[in-house]
């Protein structure tokens, strides 16, 4: 049995409303099926399932608004055998994006916690479940009866905590703590206001990132003349809907370059880095109603420019009008943050855990630039890279930025 919880679609999401269930109790579902539409502050998102199975219970009704991490349905997996031996990661119930979570189990800081906290994806993959199962066989902590009863009441799987703050590392009452348990008035005062909740959720993510990830920053000014000239030829006789924007070329260059630099593309979890085979480029989309949405362009390194441009256009429009899929919200292996044409010359960004790198793209601008001993007018863009020093060094980061530069000098190869 797998518990499906209200997913998080971004660092600033705190609550979601089930607008519509596309399934009912007993329905068979396959991996990738859209089972619900969820209304968030950022619009409607389609929720997919990541396993084959059948819906055994729907825990919330249409119209109900619940916090991120709250169980919303039970899924009977098609191949239940291995997961019968236990724990359905009940820690999912904890609001992962809540600032208080970090402090409340800080004493228990272990690689397991890191993994769970690092994993913003609420639906846990089979791999990580297996890992947790193995871990429990080797080390099961002691727990006081009171703590155990509270854990069970709150739906927290205490076996996932390697030790507590009590004698001999036993888990005691204080270790089992989630925000809901704290004083009710305090919660109702501050947390209920949506914009406040959004601020708190963003705050929790970025604070954790800055606390846990040793960032280093690099920046390279890249001359875009070749890209712009090539694009103006390409776009000259095309209707607006078929034109390629220079951003798409920059995104493509980044995705292609990352294939040679795996240390910047993947997840840092459980004390080690897992590179991703494919580049799922997280595009930070600015929403008109306020806030950001990061949508993943799947397998961006494989897309030609035309295809990539179509993906970006489609995604931006769905981000603003509704209809992004949950996998697009959660799969990004690296993120791009783009200042747009009227922003600032550069931006230095904060890595989204568990990712290990984020690119910042400034506005394009004309500057005097020396080419072959003469001063020319060049259009440049400052591309910054913030990366995780636990995984990579500045030297390889610099090589990555230079590779991106090189690709942007010959945009036709990205076609």
């Amino acid at each position: 049995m797998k518990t499906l919880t209200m997913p998080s679609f971004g660092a600033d999401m705190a609550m979601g409303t089930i607008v519509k269930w596309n399934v009912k109790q007993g329905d068979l579902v396959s991996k990738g099926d859209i089972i619900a539409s969820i209304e968030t502050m950022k619009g409607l998102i389609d929720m997919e399932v990541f396993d084959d199975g059948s819906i055994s219970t729907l825990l919330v009704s249409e119209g109900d608004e619940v916090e991120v991490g709250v169980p919303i349905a039970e899924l009977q997996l098609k191949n239940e055998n291995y997961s019968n031996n236990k724990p359905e990661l009940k820690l999912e119930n904890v609001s992962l994006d809540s600032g208080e979570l970090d402090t409340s189990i800080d004493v228990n800081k272990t690689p397991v916690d890191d993994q769970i906290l690092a994993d913003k994806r609420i639906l846990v993959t089979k791999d990580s479940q297996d890992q947790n199962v193995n871990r429990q066989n080797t080390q099961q902590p002691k727990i006081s009866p009171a703590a155990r009863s509270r854990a069970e009441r709150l739906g927290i799987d205490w076996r996932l905590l390697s030790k507590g703050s009590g004698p001999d590392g036993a888990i005691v009452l204080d270790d089992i703590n989630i925000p809901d348990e704290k004083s009710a008035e305090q919660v109702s005062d501050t947390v209920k206001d949506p914009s406040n909740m959004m601020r708190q959720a963003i705050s929790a993510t970025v604070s954790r990132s800055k606390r846990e990830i040793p960032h280093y920053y690099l920046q390279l000014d890249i001359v875009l003349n070749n890209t712009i000239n090539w694009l103006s030829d390409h776009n000259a006789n095309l209707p607006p809907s078929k034109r390629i924007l220079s951003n798409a070329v920059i995104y493509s260059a980044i995705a292609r370059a990352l294939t040679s630099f795996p240390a910047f593309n993947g997840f840092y979890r459980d004390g080690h880095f897992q590179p991703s085979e494919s580049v799922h480029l997280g595009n930070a989309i600015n929403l008109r109603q306020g806030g950001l949405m990061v949508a993943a362009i799947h397998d961006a390194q494989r897309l030609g420019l035309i295809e990539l441009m179509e993906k970006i256009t489609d995604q931006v429009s769905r981000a603003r009008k509704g209809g992004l899929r949950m996998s697009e919200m959660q799969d990004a292996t690296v993120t791009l943050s783009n200042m747009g044409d009227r922003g600032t010359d550069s931006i230095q960004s904060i890595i989204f855990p568990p990712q290990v790198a984020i690119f910042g793209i400034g506005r394009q601008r004309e500057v005097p630039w020396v080419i072959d001993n003469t001063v020319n007018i060049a259009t440049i863009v400052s591309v910054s890279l913030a990366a995780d020093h636990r995984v990579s060094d500045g030297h390889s980061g610099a090589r990555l930025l230079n590779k991106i530069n090189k690709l942007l000098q010959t945009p036709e190869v990205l076609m």
Partner: protein
Amino acid sequence: MNNNQSIKDLVCMLILDIAPEADLHNLDPNEDLREELDLDSMDFINLLDSIATKTGVNVPESDYSKVNSLALLTNYLATQS
């Protein structure tokens, strides 16, 4: 003039489709449209796309500087259509 007014109304309608919160009443028609309404390059290309669909006028990239305010854009469309 009448023609210009109806083109302007059409453009305003298409802008509102892309930027529903835009305050077009207080928009200075001679100011930079994208600056004033916070339209990014994607919004702008979508606006030109819907203009092309409605009016048949394709604004080429080389003419972007001739359409960067509401007044310029309206005039441009009036002379082209």
